[in-house]
C-alpha cells in the first residue's frame, strides 16, 4: 500500500500545475527620431499593448495609431517647444508582463502619459504602478467597469480607485445594457438563456445584460456557467434547447463562446448567440465547422470607416504606410494619445511655456478637463475617468465575417 499516499500527492500536484504558466516580456519597437530644433523638450507617450501573440493585430494597431498622433502633434507644432515621441512595450496580453512594462515606463521621467493596455485583466496589474507615480494612463480598449468605478460597482457603490486611470472605450455597463436593448427591441427576442464563464469580464457583462433584459420586460429562462479552456458544453447546450429560449447571451471570450454557439446549434436549437466584444473576433466564427450565421456581438465605438470625423485619420494612417492596419481600436488609441497631447499643452500653457517640475501630476489633473473633437467623436472624461462618448455597434455573423448591423449612441 505504499503507493496510496503518492496518489493523493500526485492529485495535489496536478492541481498545482494549474497555476503554472510561462510568460516573458520583450521590448517593443522604438519610435522614429523626430527632427527637432535646438530648444525642444522631449515628451514620451508610452504604449503598452500585446505586440506579439494572438492579439498582436489589435496591439500593433494601437501602437501605430499612437505613433501617428505623436507625429501629427509634432508636424502641427501642437505644443510649442515640445517634441512628442512614443515608446511601445509588449505585454503579450499577460498581466505580469504589463506590470513590468508599467514599472519601466514609470522609471523613464520623460514619459508623461501612457496609452494602453488592450486587456482589462492586464490593466488591473498596471493601475497601481501608474497611480503611485502620478502617471496618466488612457486605455483605448478596456471595458471592465471596476477599473474606473471600483469593485462594488455592481451593487451601485461607485468609487474611483485610481485618479490616473482614463479610457476612451466605453464600459461593459453600457455595453451590456445596449446589447439587451438591441436583443429585446430590435431583434424582438423575449426569452434569453444567460451563460457566463465565471471570469470578471464575463460575469459582469452577463449580469448587466440579464438585469436590463428583465427591466425591459423580457424573461430570463435559465442561467448557467462554463469553465474556460474546456470544450465540452453539451450539457449546457441541452439545457438551452429545453428551456425554450429564443436567444442565448454569453458573457465571455471567443474561444468558449464560439464552441458554445456551435454546440447549441447542434442540439437543433436554431437560435442566435449574442456576446460582447469578447466574442467579436473572426476566431469565434472559426471555432468549429458549424455555421454561425445570425450570431450577434457588440463592440465599443463605431466602425471608424463610417465616421466623417475619422476621414483624415484613415487617410493619414494610409499615407504613413504602417505595416499593420489600425484594427478595431485604432481610432480610440489616436484619441487617447491626443488627449495626452492636449493635457500636456494645457500644463505647458499654464506654466509660461515650460514643463513644470511636477509635470506628471499636472497632466493627470489636466486630463479630467480635456475636451476636443476627436477621430471617434467628442472626447472627454467623466468623474470616474470614463469616456463621455457612449457609441456602440452591433455586429452579426454573415458567412465567415462579422458585419456591422447597427451603430448607435447608448441612451438610458
Amino acid at each position: 500500500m505504499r503507493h496510496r499516499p503518492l496518489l493523493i500527492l500526485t492529485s495535489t500536484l496536478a492541481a498545482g500545475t494549474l497555476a503554472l504558466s510561462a510568460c516573458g516580456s520583450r521590448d517593443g519597437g522604438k519610435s522614429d527620431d523626430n527632427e527637432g530644433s535646438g530648444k525642444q523638450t522631449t515628451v514620451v507617450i508610452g504604449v503598452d499593448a500585446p505586440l506579439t501573440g494572438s492579439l498582436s493585430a489589435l496591439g500593433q494597431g494601437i501602437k501605430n495609431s499612437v505613433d501617428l498622433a505623436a507625429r501629427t502633434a509634432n508636424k502641427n507644432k501642437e505644443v510649442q517647444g515640445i517634441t512628442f515621441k512614443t515608446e511601445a512595450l509588449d505585454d503579450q496580453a499577460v498581466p505580469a508582463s504589463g506590470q513590468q512594462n508599467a514599472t519601466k515606463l514609470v522609471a523613464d521621467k520623460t514619459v508623461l502619459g501612457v496609452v494602453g493596455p488592450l486587456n482589462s485583466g492586464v490593466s488591473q496589474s498596471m493601475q497601481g504602478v501608474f497611480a503611485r507615480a502620478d502617471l496618466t494612463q488612457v486605455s483605448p480598449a478596456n471595458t471592465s467597469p471596476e477599473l474606473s468605478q471600483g469593485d462594488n460597482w455592481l451593487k451601485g457603490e461607485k468609487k474611483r480607485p485610481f485618479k490616473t486611470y482614463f479610457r476612451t472605450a466605453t464600459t461593459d455597463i453600457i455595453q451590456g445594457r445596449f446589447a439587451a436593448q438591441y436583443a429585446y427591441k430590435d431583434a424582438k427576442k423575449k426569452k434569453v438563456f444567460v451563460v457566463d464563464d465565471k471570469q470578471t469580464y464575463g460575469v459582469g457583462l452577463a449580469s448587466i445584460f440579464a438585469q436590463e433584459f428583465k427591466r425591459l420586460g423580457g424573461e430570463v429562462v435559465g442561467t448557467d456557467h462554463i469553465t474556460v479552456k474546456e470544450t465540452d458544453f453539451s450539457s449546457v447546450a441541452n439545457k438551452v434547447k429545453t428551456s425554450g429560449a429564443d436567444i442565448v447571451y454569453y458573457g465571455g471570450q471567443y474561444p468558449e463562446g464560439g464552441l458554445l454557439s456551435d454546440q447549441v446549434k447542434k442540439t437543433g436549437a436554431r437560435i442566435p448567440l449574442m456576446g460582447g466584444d469578447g466574442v467579436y473576433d473572426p476566431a469565434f466564427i472559426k471555432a468549429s465547422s458549424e455555421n454561425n450565421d445570425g450570431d450577434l456581438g457588440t463592440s465599443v465605438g463605431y466602425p471608424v470607416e463610417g465616421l466623417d470625423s475619422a476621414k483624415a485619420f484613415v487617410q493619414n494612417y494610409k499615407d504613413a504606410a504602417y505595416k499593420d492596419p489600425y484594427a478595431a481600436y485604432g481610432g480610440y488609441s489616436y484619441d487617447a494619445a491626443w488627449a495626452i497631447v492636449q493635457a500636456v499643452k494645457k500644463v505647458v500653457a499654464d506654466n509660461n511655456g515650460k514643463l513644470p517640475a511636477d509635470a506628471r501630476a499636472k497632466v493627470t489633473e489636466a486630463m479630467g478637463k480635456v475636451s476636443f473633437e476627436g477621430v471617434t467623436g467628442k472626447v472627454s472624461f467623466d468623474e470616474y475617468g470614463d469616456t463621455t462618448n457612449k457609441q456602440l455597434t452591433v455586429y452579426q455573423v454573415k458567412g465567415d465575417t462579422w458585419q456591422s448591423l447597427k451603430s448607435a449612441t447608448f441612451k438610458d
Partner: protein
Amino acid sequence: MHQLPQTLVNGLALGALYGLIAIGYTMVYGIVQLINFAHGEIVMIGGFGALSVHLWLPAGTPLSAALPLMLIGGALASVAVATAAERFAYRPLRDAPRLAPLITAIGLSIALQQLVWAFYPDAKKSRGFPQFQGDAFELAGNLHIQRDDVFVLIAAPLCMLALGFFVARSRTGRAMQATAQDPDTAKLMGINTDRIIVLAFAIGGAFAAVAAVAAGLRAGQINFEMGFILGLKAFTAAVLGGIGNIYGAMLGGVVLGIAEAAASTYIQHIPGMQQLGGGGWKDVWAFALLILVLLIRPQGLLGERVADRA
C-alpha cells in the same frame, strides 16, 4: 427527468473519451507504478499528428475516408513521443525515488505543451479540426446523437475489446500480466521487461491518439493546452475505476462522464441546491463522487488490493 436519455448519451460519449485516455494512465501505472503526468500532452500531440495528416491530404477528401489515415498519423506521433519519453525521461529514473519520475513527468508535460506552442504552425491559438457535416441523428423525439460522437461511441468499445483480447490471449499480453505482478521474477523467466514497459507506453499512446481524434471531432478544434484538463479528468477516471485495471479505467471514465453530465443537468433542480448546480459546479460534484468512492472502496471500483512490493 425527460432529459435523462440525452444526459446519458452526452455523458457516455464524454466518458468513453475519458476512458480511452485513462487506459494509458492505468497500463503504465500497473507495470511501473508511475503516474505519467505527461499523458495528457501525448493526447494533444496525437491530435496535432492527426490534424497534420488532414492538412496534408488533398482538400475535399471526405472525412470518413480521411479518418483512418488521421488515426494512423495521430497514433504514429503519440506513440513516438510516448516511447521516447519512456526511453529518455523515465527509464534512467527507474530505480530513483518515486518522486523523481513524477516531477520529470510534470516537467515533460509543460515542455511538450510549449514545444507545440512554439513550433507547430499557428498553434498559438486553437486550430480548427474537421467535423462531420450534417444534423444529429434523431433516435427518438427528444434524443439526439451528434455525428461527431458516433466515432467515440464505436471506437471506445472496439479498442477495449481488442485490448482485452490481447492482454488475456496473446503471449505478449501474458508477459505483460506477469511483469505487472512481479517484474523481477518475470525477468528470471526470460521476459524482456524493458520491451514490455515500452509496449505499455506505446499502447497508451495509440489509445491517446484515438481519444485525441474523438476530442477534436467533438469540439471542432484542438489546441496546445487541451491535454491538461483531459489528462486530469482521465487520471481521475483511472483512480475511480481502480488504478492498474484496464476495464476499471473505462468504467471509471464512463461513470465520471455521466456524473458530470448528470450533475450539470439535475443538481440545480434539487430544492435548495439551485446555486450549486449547472455547468460551473460539475467538476466539484465529479470530484465529490471520486472522494466518496475512495472512502468506501479505497482501491477503486474494480481495483484489487495490490500487495506491497518488497
